[in-house]
């Protein structure tokens, strides 16, 4: 069978955009922007888009198609094809394990999104609210109380009931994801976690696994491209519906006129940042925000994670493009598509709505932690509980997140599938089965040894932060200094309808690597060398030690597989050369 190809340019753009558009666009971006200068954040954001996001994306697209033309679709094969040296294939190991490990916990979050959507739409969340409200006891009123006192007591009771409902939805994840305190009196330890997990999340997790692997099994064209062709427009439709709902909220509580949607938009977009100092909101001016290095680092980090550069996914996707496709334009299209979902939709929905119903302190608190989970699963259910038709829109929002997550999780599986097929010579059945087994072990590890969300959090830190920085920096240096700009840019320009910027060689050779090294260096200093919380936890917490041990095991496992693949490729090439010599 011939190597697979994308059926159309639009198909590959939708697939790459789908890969990039995920929870970070709708949850992480607004929180980070708000905590780092609001509208002022857009200046470093756009600069980072131009000198970091686009160049790295172009690097991955060019390297991917270069390898694809030579028959390789997996990162180890592509790196080896570029240099012709076996040892460079090991760089590609990182590009295999990053998406596979991220998939292991991302699929759980995907399952939560689907579960929440179903709960909202089938009345399950109403039941959660009702149960919490039933436990609120009426305020005792003496018989001698006046009518006014009785009314006040009743109002207090209603407020308490409402608060209990909101709190129940905000804490729902704790029971839904099977994460409960170990000392909970209803059960203890991992048995309780297992029971809750099997009752609530497991069916959704199974469904997500089946749908992901079914689509991957169908292949690039009939699986990923087909799915993204309808999923991306559906995602856009859901986002527009929610946007209309949010923008027409007006001032829901007449007694609190400041909590209006206009003020919410102002809070998100005015060029004034906000900080929390001792729990109080403090404004940060435009110049002050821009002169803070943290704002620039946050912008670069957001662009970096949002565009899915440094994951190795784009490289594999680009290897399936046709030889004369305009990959330069495809790259800009996918990056701008991601930016559109992030800025024009993500930036207009969450923060204004959360401002109206939860207040600004909660937003800044979540944004400072750059915590998508905190904002999405703990804060937003409170917004939907207060919003008119909130349960319908809550379901729609979590369905939107589910769609965004599934187009991303699909892309995380393809690099490893491509490697297992071309590196180990496995058929599609065997490759899908083996990867399914590996990721299922990882997903169960994340869910069952959860101990709060420790495993998920630390897997995310070491893979989606440390490894991605490392791979992106390596890729850019490799492209500019080892592959050579002439060869790389020739590949990028081949078939291009758009003109590449004249400054691109300079940017790729000096600016982007320097910028990346600065960001990576600052990150290392802040998080690792200064004994940050994650490194401290690694020294002290056995669960974290097990998690990091698990990650190292996966790295060693894939590194061995890459070694086997390289031997196999060598053998195949030798046989081919011998056959050619015999034939001549």
């Amino acid at each position, binding site marked *: 069978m*011939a190597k697979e190809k994308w059926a159309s340019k639009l198909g590959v*753009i939708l697939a790459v955009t789908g890969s990039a558009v995920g929870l970070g666009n709708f949850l992480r971006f607004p929180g980070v922007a708000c905590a780092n200068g609001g509208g002022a954040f857009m200046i470093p954001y*756009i600069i980072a888009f131009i000198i970091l996001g686009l160049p790295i994306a172009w690097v991955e697209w060019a390297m991917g198609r270069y390898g694809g033309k030579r028959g390789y679709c997996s990162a180890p094969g592509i790196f080896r094809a570029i240099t012709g040296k076996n040892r460079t294939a090991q760089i590609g190991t990182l590009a295999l394990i990053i998406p596979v490990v991220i998939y292991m916990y991302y699929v759980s979050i995907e399952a939560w999104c689907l579960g929440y959507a179903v709960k909202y739409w089938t009345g399950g969340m109403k039941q959660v609210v009702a149960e919490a409200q039933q436990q609120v006891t009426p305020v005792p009123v003496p018989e001698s109380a006046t009518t006014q006192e009785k009314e006040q007591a009743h109002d207090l009771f209603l407020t308490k009931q409402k608060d209990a409902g909101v709190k129940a939805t905000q804490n729902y994840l704790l029971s839904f994801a099977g994460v409960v305190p170990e000392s909970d009196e209803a059960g203890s330890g991992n048995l309780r976690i297992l029971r809750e997990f099997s009752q609530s999340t497991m069916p959704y997790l199974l469904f997500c696994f089946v749908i992901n692997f079914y689509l991957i099994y169908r292949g690039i064209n009939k699986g990923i491209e087909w799915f993204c062709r309808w999923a991306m427009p559906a995602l856009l439709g859901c986002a527009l519906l929610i946007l209309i709902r949010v923008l027409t909220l007006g001032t829901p509580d007449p007694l609190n006129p400041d909590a209006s949607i206009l003020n919410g938009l102002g809070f998100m977009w005015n060029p004034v940042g906000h900080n929390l100092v001792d729990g109080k909101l403090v404004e940060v001016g435009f110049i002050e925000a821009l002169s803070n290095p943290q704002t620039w680092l946050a912008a670069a980090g957001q662009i970096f994670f949002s565009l899915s550069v440094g994951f190795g996914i784009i490289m594999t996707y680009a290897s399936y493009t046709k030889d004369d496709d305009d990959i330069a*334009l495809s790259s*800009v*299209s996918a990056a*701008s598509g991601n930016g*559109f979902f992030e800025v024009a939709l993500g930036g207009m929905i969450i923060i204004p709505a959360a401002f109206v119903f939860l207040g600004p302190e909660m937003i800044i608190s979540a944004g400072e932690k750059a915590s998508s989970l905190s904002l999405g699963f703990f804060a937003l259910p409170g917004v939907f509980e207060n919003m008119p038709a909130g349960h319908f829109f809550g379901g729609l929002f979590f369905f939107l997140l589910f769609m965004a997550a599934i187009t991303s999780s699909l892309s995380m599986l393809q690099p490893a599938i491509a490697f297992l097929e*071309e590196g180990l010579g496995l058929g599609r059945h065997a490759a899908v089965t083996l990867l399914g087994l590996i990721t299922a072990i990882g997903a169960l590890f994340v869910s069952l040894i959860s101990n709060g969300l420790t495993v998920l959090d630390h897997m995310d830190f070491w893979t989606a932060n440390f490894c991605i920085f490392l791979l992106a920096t390596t890729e850019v240096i490799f492209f500019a200094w080892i592959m050579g700009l002439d060869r790389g840019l020739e590949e990028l320009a081949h078939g291009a309808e758009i003109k590449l910027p004249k400054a691109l060689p300079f940017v790729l050779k000096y600016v982007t690597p320097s910028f990346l090294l600065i960001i990576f260096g600052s990150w290392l200093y802040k998080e690792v060398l200064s004994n940050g919380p994650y490194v401290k936890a690694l020294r002290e917490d056995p669960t974290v030690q097990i998690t990091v041990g698990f990650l190292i095991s996966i790295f060693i496992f894939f590194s061995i597989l890459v070694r086997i693949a390289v031997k196999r490729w060598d053998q195949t090439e030798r046989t081919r050369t011998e056959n050619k010599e015999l034939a001549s």
Partner: protein
Amino acid sequence: MLISVIGMTSLFFWCIRKVLTTPEASEHVHSPADIDPHDQED
């Protein structure tokens, strides 16, 4: 806000328009790839 939102939206739709109005690339057949046709069994 308007500059950011309109800017990103315009860039995205310009790209999509450009992609849809330029003809699809034809597929070239290459020399045999450096790998086994492993999917033959499927």
